[in-house]
């Protein structure tokens, strides 16, 4: 008997539901003796972190690379995703002989706090009630996510990361790590990111959140208990966000004004254009694997992010006295996190006397460029990591 599209979708949703509490892969559990103090002013306890590792931690634990994922990513950075079955989201970058060489480095990637792939988030079961947290989970911030990662890293017995690397929201976490745990970060590679979320970005996120909350199936955030799903709202949120990840050029190259499976317009609101049908597909695929409340929490965390504000308005102060080696990367066509934001970080790092490199990579692929095949990005990451590894005395990996 063959499975229908609806069956398949239900299976994927069930898999996603299971991963929220009992993920495939590794879990670090933190009990009542190790509460996580949240910026919102409450302690989260107990809680858990779902994570994956690749490569081998060396004897003196000096080769750990923490990869921080972006908004809707997860810990399955370099191996098949258990929900979608698709390859890891950064397999192009991580593996034997790749820029983040798993023959040389021990790669850790954890699902962020507030996520829905095994780390405590709104889709997790609240041990106090036996029901999903929903909106009863306190608001999460980027510093909270980083504090949770810090607890995981310490749990693994690692006192200093060789490198913290990530793009977009992952890059925010990298900057937060470098600012809050200066002595624990030997090198940092924030990509396509900024030290604060812009008003325009907050605006886009608000559109997404409103789409979710306007969906009658959302039920005030209690949909998991009431067995409904705000799929339409979440899909619209994803569609709007997806546009911001691309560039006009990239959309034009991919789709132009071409029709989908037809030669002429239907004079209806069907998905006549290829770009429409692509966005609808992106929206549908996303709702199968992602939790709507998680989307609310994680976008909010990005909105609140502003490192300078935490340091009296001075970004340079956030990094003063740092010994971390930084390499900041931006892309020319990224309008979500434009180069100007990266330059602000670089200027602040210069002002604080940090060792910083900065490259703006020419690409017409928009914000998403950091996830795609960009040889210049790979060359820069490889070069920066190789040089940092030499400085740290790590033995060379296998040659690609």
């Amino acid at each position: 008997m063959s499975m229908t599209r609806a069956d398949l979708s239900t299976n994927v949703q069930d898999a996603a539901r299971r991963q929220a509490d009992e993920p495939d892969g590794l879990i670090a559990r933190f009990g009542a003796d190790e509460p996580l103090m949240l910026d919102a002013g409450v302690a989260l306890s107990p809680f858990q972190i779902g994570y994956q590792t690749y490569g081998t931690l060396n004897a003196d634990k000096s080769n750990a690379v923490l990869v921080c994922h972006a908004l809707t990513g997860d810990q399955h950075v370099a191996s098949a995703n258990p929900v979608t079955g698709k390859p890891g989201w950064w397999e192009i970058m991580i593996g034997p002989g790749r820029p983040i060489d798993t023959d040389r480095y021990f790669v850790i990637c954890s699902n962020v706090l507030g996520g829905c792939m095994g780390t405590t988030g709104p889709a997790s079961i609240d041990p106090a009630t036996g029901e999903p947290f929903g909106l009863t989970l306190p608001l999460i911030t980027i510093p909270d996510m980083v504090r949770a990662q810090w607890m995981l890293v310490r749990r693994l017995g690692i006192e200093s990361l060789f490198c913290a690397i990530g793009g977009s929201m992952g890059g925010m976490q990298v900057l937060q790590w470098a600012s809050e745990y200066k002595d624990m970060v030997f090198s940092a590679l924030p990509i396509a990111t900024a030290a604060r979320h812009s008003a325009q970005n907050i605006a886009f996120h608000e559109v997404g959140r409103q789409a979710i909350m306007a969906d009658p199936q959302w039920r005030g955030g209690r949909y998991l208990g009431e067995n409904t799903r705000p799929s339409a709202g979440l899909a619209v949120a994803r569609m709007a966000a997806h546009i911001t990840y691309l560039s006009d050029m990239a959309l034009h190259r991919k789709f132009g004004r071409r029709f989908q499976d037809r030669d002429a317009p239907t004079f209806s609101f069907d998905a006549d254009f290829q770009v429409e049908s692509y966005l609808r597909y992106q929206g549908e695929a996303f709702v199968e694997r992602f939790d709507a409340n998680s989307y609310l929490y994680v976008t909010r965390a990005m909105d609140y992010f502003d490192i300078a504000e935490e340091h009296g308005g001075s970004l340079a102060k956030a990094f003063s006295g740092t010994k971390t080696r930084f390499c900041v990367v931006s892309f020319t066509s990224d309008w979500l996190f434009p180069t100007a934001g990266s330059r602000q970080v670089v200027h602040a790092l210069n002002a604080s006397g940090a060792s910083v490199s900065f490259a703006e990579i020419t690409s017409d692929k928009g914000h998403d460029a950091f996830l795609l095949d960009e040889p210049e990005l790979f060359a820069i990451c490889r070069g920066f990591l190789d040089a940092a590894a030499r400085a740290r005395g790590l033995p060379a990996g296998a040659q690609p």
Partner: protein
Amino acid sequence: MSHDLTMSATPGSIRADYLVVAGMVTPGSKVLDVGCGDGGLLKLLRDEKGVDGRGIELSRAGVNDCVAAGLAVVQGDADTDLAFYPDNAFDLVILSQTIQATRQPRVVLEHMLRIGRQAIVSFPNFGHWRLRLQLILRGRMPTSENLPYSWYDTPNIHFCTLRDFVDLVRELDAEIERSAALDGWGREVRVNAPWWFWNLFGEQAVFKLSRKG
């Protein structure tokens, strides 16, 4: 803003003008190299002089090379980006074979002496006899092995002679600590030679400046 815009390097050897510049750098100092190209000078200073070096480079290829070599280099433009560096952030700021390609040489020099107590500037001397002769005899904009560009596609927009540069330094009220003129092979022109001799026979000039007071 690469060195290669204006200079030709011998493969496998360290550029002669780098050695002259390096000779003027205090070991262990904190140095910013503006227009650092592929990082050749920064590497030399790091490896031979124990310098804590940083670079600014306009070309992406140059930045990639530098980062791969483990140097801390920021992609940027001397004309716009020096303004973001704080006062006294470095002991020494180097501008090697780049000042003639800046839009505002005077402003760039001011920033250099603000960011660092000292500055080293090297540039092709437009007062060299060969260039003078070309203009006089052929009536055309001069070109040379070191300055191979035609007038319409050159990155070099503010040529000066050695004496012009000295005038600018006086205007900025900076002090010339050391100076050298290099011949076509990058060798130093006789040290005791008078100014007019340098200006005529030096193909390149290197000046080490310091802020007064």
